[in-house]
């Protein structure tokens, strides 16, 4: 069970990383235009 000492902090660190990623994406305005973002993904690249 000593493995918990490594695994639990690791799991929490990964979760925290996800949370920080979410907060960063929110701050950089990625949720401002969900509809547009959906279309941009499939739009052709500019010539």
């Amino acid at each position, binding site marked *: 069970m000593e493995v918990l000492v490594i695994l639990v902090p690791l799991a*929490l660190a990964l979760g925290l990383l996800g949370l920080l990623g*979410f*907060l960063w994406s*929110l701050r950089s305005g990625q949720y*401002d235009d*969900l*509809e*547009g973002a959906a279309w*941009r993904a499939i739009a*052709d690249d500019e010539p």
Partner: protein
Amino acid sequence: MQAARDFSHYVRNAGSGHSHIDLAVEGVSCAGCMSKIERGLSAIPDVTLARVNLTDRRVALEWRGSALDPARFIDRLAELGYKAYPFEAERAETVEAERSGFLLRCLGVAAFATMNVMMLSVPVWSGNVGDMISEQRDFFHWLSALIALPAAAYAGQPFFRSAYQALRSRNVNMDVPISVGVVLALGMSLVETIHHAEHTYFDAAIMLLTFLLVGRYLDQNMRRRTRAVAGNLAALKAETATRFSDTGEIAEVPVAAIRAGDVVLLRPGERCAIDGAVIEGRSEVDQSLITGETRHVTATYGTAVYAGSLNISGTLRIRVSAASEGTLLAEVTRLLDNALQARSRYVRLADRASRLYAPVVHAAALLTMVGWVLIGVTWHDAIVTAIAVLIITCPCALGLAIPTVQTVASGAMFRAGVLLNSGDAIERLAEIDWIIFDKTGTLTLPQLDVVNSASIPADVLELAGRLALASHHPVAAAVARASQATAPLPGVVEEPGQGVRAMVDGVEVRLGRPSFCGADRLADEILMRDPEASAVAFSRGEACFVFAVRQSLRPDASAMICALQARGIAVEIASGDRELAVRAAAQSLGIGEWRAGVTPADKIARIEELKLQGFTVMMVGDGLNDAPALAAANVSMSPISAAHLSQATADLVFLGSALAPVVAAVDFSRKALQLMRQNLWLAVGYNFLAVPIAMAGFVTPLIAAVAMSGSSVLVMLNALRGRRVAPRRL
């Protein structure tokens, strides 16, 4: 005189020598538009950023230096086929957007904490029946506390703040039992952890916050989206005024840049965008948007004109007055303030439910504790059981019952062309049994229309329409619209105050006053039959024709009035217009109850009278004179063409030229109220099942978590039924 357009008011300094402007754009609907606009605007030299926001239908633009004129972007967009106008976010919209972002951050934190605490809780639940040693359990409990406590302190802010505010004003709202439940659950769990106990409720408390934040966020997001659309519509109205500078030059500036004391020019056919007094010129003014009176008023030196008046015949110079200086405005403002105070006494359904709910639940918890102590268990066990009762009854489902329905219903209304101004409008609208309509601009369309175009030969109509295109006169505009002409006649001469004339194939054609075209007798005949109309004559050589022009009823008005009556709602007209006009409209719509020539105070008196008789009244109106009545009624609605003050006062705003959104709003709100009640009963039913189990002391954290998520999902699924209403006869 062509005035230069001056949009400098909207340009912001974006730092490091860049300028920034936001434009609201009409007609952007797909990916194609998006890349077309972005490519088209980026091609302008010095533009550094052109980005379309498809959700809000806006374009953000940035460019180097200050040499570029923003008008150039608007012209470029017009070339591409889009109507655009500079846009300035209203304070209300900025606040909503900020709140939306805050809720999303809270939701992120709460969801993160829920997932991690659950990861720690599940082994404890299963370990309790297996071979988990108590040191491991304690370790997991401490970790859970470490995650849940700070997360709850942050993500719980929306609830704690609202509960604190309610308590400080000696009130109870839904957030009070939620906050009490969460704080007690966390506090008890911490104490239990310290004492190496078996059960903690960190997972239940933080999961509750996550579920509730989902509901709050969805609700807030819908409201933000509605505000954005309303903001765009306001911007696209492009209200500008032609202002004289100190040197006597004129420039077209946005209304937001006009200050009291400025002098503006108002040409025939223009709608006045400011309040002020005439200092030069003489004209006839259509004030129907203000007073409901369709007859024109003569404006000379000193006459007060209000935003929304339409200038008919002559050019006026107007000195802008500070708001509410005018006598009519001052009166309206006074009445409005009184009415708004009365309105704020309404108690939302959610708050009424929590007023009943909170005391019952807290009493049940107290009773549990006292009961167990009397039976003879220790104080510690009694308190733990009592808190378990509070946790299991913590109004998760109750907290979601109303926001989820509101979100779904306001989304459905949005698609039907109704924008919501206030959150509790849905439940108030659902209970109405009496509607008072204003006539001018509400039952009728705001612009003038030709009503006898069927009796005029098609070629004559077309010729008259092409001639009318040369004139700015609103009556001429009606003729042009009726004929759907697009090519103006060449060589048109305008006779001021009379009409326009031109030569076609060697024959003179004229459009204007009946006397100008020699059609007095014909015009009199038409006016005799339809006293509400104004006559505009057209002559080609000796032959003459007369168009009857008037505000026509909304195309579906009569069907929609029937539909409302079929739903058991009494319909009445109260208009500031004269008796003849109101009676004619009432008769053609089949409305028995009508009042003409009423003042704003009369309208309020009528509403109060109906309220006293026990009716729930909705007011639908657009004029400035309707604003106090809109506030006095139980719930109110305005068309998008309404005066500013009325639109801001109304609970709901409907789009387009049809009256159908009014009926759709009634249907959706009735369905929504029904669902809200069902959801409340579902939540209560769940408590009936859960409370005895908790009181008996059988609740484990696992049961609490399952019961809470089960009831929340049930309530959310039920709310989704509000997207559609059963089709019924109109």
